[in-house]
């Protein structure tokens, strides 16, 4: 069947497709000129919704220039269950690597935040919905263990639909694994700051994301355990306005604060200087 195999390198070579000039806001549904959003740190100028950004953009936003050093860069997902739905997991991974700007849903490593050394873990929703499988779990625990060993603050930025179904029970176990990492890190008495971005659900929210000593959310982010559609189908009634938004979580005492992206770096730096160290 060799004749059937096309040369993938040639046929799938990525051309630089000009991105659409307009973009629709997830929150207010307005159609906005993309440049206007990009100039504004990808914040909707109409309603203040914070668009999802890539791990690289996030690191640029938070880390002092040139200070971030990625760890676990070589870790790649395999297909432990030979999972096949309407598509092979292997193919989904390949697509995700091609379509997103990253090779996995998590990027981790040490960085300086306004001069404060810390360890960063950033999820990227564009890679399979930021879902947590073996690699995300491993990168998280590597980061947390490094922070524990070097007694440095730990910062995680979540944006994820939850566990990566295609890794089955192994993805579920990453919840335990990442929580185990935090249970050890907490003994360092260094701060663990968890930032919740749109969206943070399921296996990620029910593990490391909700375990922050201090929890920050970006405005209007959707955050919860079960997805809104699952809840609607279960209780057979409409969900109240604003349900599972960052504002809803703040009101219910589940997070410490909502912080605009423009002030996020300064807020994290402040929290580190107020809580880390023995002065």
């Amino acid at each position, binding site marked *: 069947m060799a004749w059937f195999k096309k040369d993938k390198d040639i046929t799938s070579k990525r051309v630089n497709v000009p991105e659409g000039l307009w973009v629709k806001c997830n929150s207010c549904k307005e159609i906005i000129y993309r440049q206007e959003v990009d100039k504004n740190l990808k914040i909707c100028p109409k309603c203040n919704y914070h668009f999802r950004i890539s791990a690289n953009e996030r690191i640029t936003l938070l880390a002092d220039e040139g200070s971030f050093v990625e760890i676990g860069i*070589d*870790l*790649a*997902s*395999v297909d*432990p*269950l030979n*999972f*096949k*739905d*309407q598509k092979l997991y292997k193919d989904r991974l390949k697509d995700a690597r091609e379509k997103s700007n990253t*090779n996995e849903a998590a990027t981790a490593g040490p960085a300086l935040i306004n001069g404060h050394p810390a360890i960063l873990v950033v999820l990227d929703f564009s890679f399979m919905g930021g879902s947590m*499988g*073996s*690699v995300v*779990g*491993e990168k998280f*625990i590597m980061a947390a263990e490094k922070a524990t060993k070097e007694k440095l603050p730990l910062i995680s930025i979540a944006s994820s639909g939850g*566990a990566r*179904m295609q*890794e*089955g*029970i*192994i*993805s*579920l*176990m*990453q*919840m*335990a*694994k990442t*929580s*185990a990492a935090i*249970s*050890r890190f*907490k003994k360092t008495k260094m701060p663990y700051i968890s930032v919740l971005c749109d969206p943070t659900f*399921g*296996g990620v*929210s*029910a*593990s*490391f*994301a*909700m*375990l922050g000593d201090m929890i920050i959310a970006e405005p209007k982010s959707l955050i*919860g*355990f*079960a*997805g809104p559609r*699952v*809840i609607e189908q*279960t*209780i057979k009634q409409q*969900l*109240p306005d604003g*349900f*599972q938004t960052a504002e809803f979580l703040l009101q*219910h*005492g*589940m997070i410490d604060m909502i912080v605009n992206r423009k002030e996020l770096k300064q807020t994290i730096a402040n929290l580190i200087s107020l809580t880390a160290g023995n002065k």
Partner: protein
Amino acid sequence: MHYYLDFEKPVAELENKIEELRRLADGKDMNITTEIKKLENKARDLRADIFSKITPWQKTQIARHPERPYTLDYIELMTKDFVELHGDRKFSDDPAIVAGFANFQGIPVAIIGHQKGRGTKERIERNFGQPHPEGYRKALRVMKLAEKFGKPIITLIDTPGAYPGIEAEERGQSEAIASNLMEMFQLRTPIIAVIIGEGGSGGALALAVGDKVMMFEHSVYSVISPEGCAAILWKKNNSQVGKGEYEKAAEALKMTSADLLNLGIIDEIIPEPLGGAHRSKEETAEALEAVLLRSIDELREKSFDELLEERYNKFRIIGKLEEVEQQP
């Protein structure tokens, strides 16, 4: 009358016939008695044959069987002097989780488990074994008591999942589950977790961080239910998913006890009587009792530091990945 699953129908017919013959014979007619013996052997062979080739989706049905023994059945069959403790001291008491202390073979232990409830009324009261945050917080409270009093913890897992509802979200379902996961890694007492029926995702895992994790033969343990998985991954445009897709999803998820042993997620499979745990609750409880006793003995030999180190590493190593050199 037993409750029969779809794929047990051939055996159901035979067994109903046996019952009928028994009523007729009244123990006197020797011909009928021989006939009954013959039919009983046939039924056993037929059942063994059916059960030798059940699919993961069929196993899911057995794990959810309405007559399957629940946490309170095991407590009654295996322990003495059970004292149930109620409430999370923060909001309320969640009947979907049962927690307390009991005397297990002369050893005082904490027992915590999901409870599904039998019959419509109790099922609704116990929310079909789907806990709210207060259930997980009660569980953690009792686990911390066990640590304080130096008693081993036995958890029995049997839930479709943590409840997806408005109040559950308002009261922090995610936080409650996450806190249990984190805290269980620091509890200085042995923890033995047993999946007795349905191990439904995070809502199951929140009680299943153990030094030993075991599954009953026909229990299932998965990141998502076959129905939930099929609805997401097998849905095409407007087509409805059904039994065919559930079969595929259950197969793909690798959620049976044999799969999990194979993947190195669990330590041991506890065998069930032919046809499933509900066919003989006593026999099933005895099998569990033996495994628990052996595990408690083994774990009590270890220092708490050893225990925590091993518990950490047990979960630390779970994951399959490869190292691929990245082009700069």
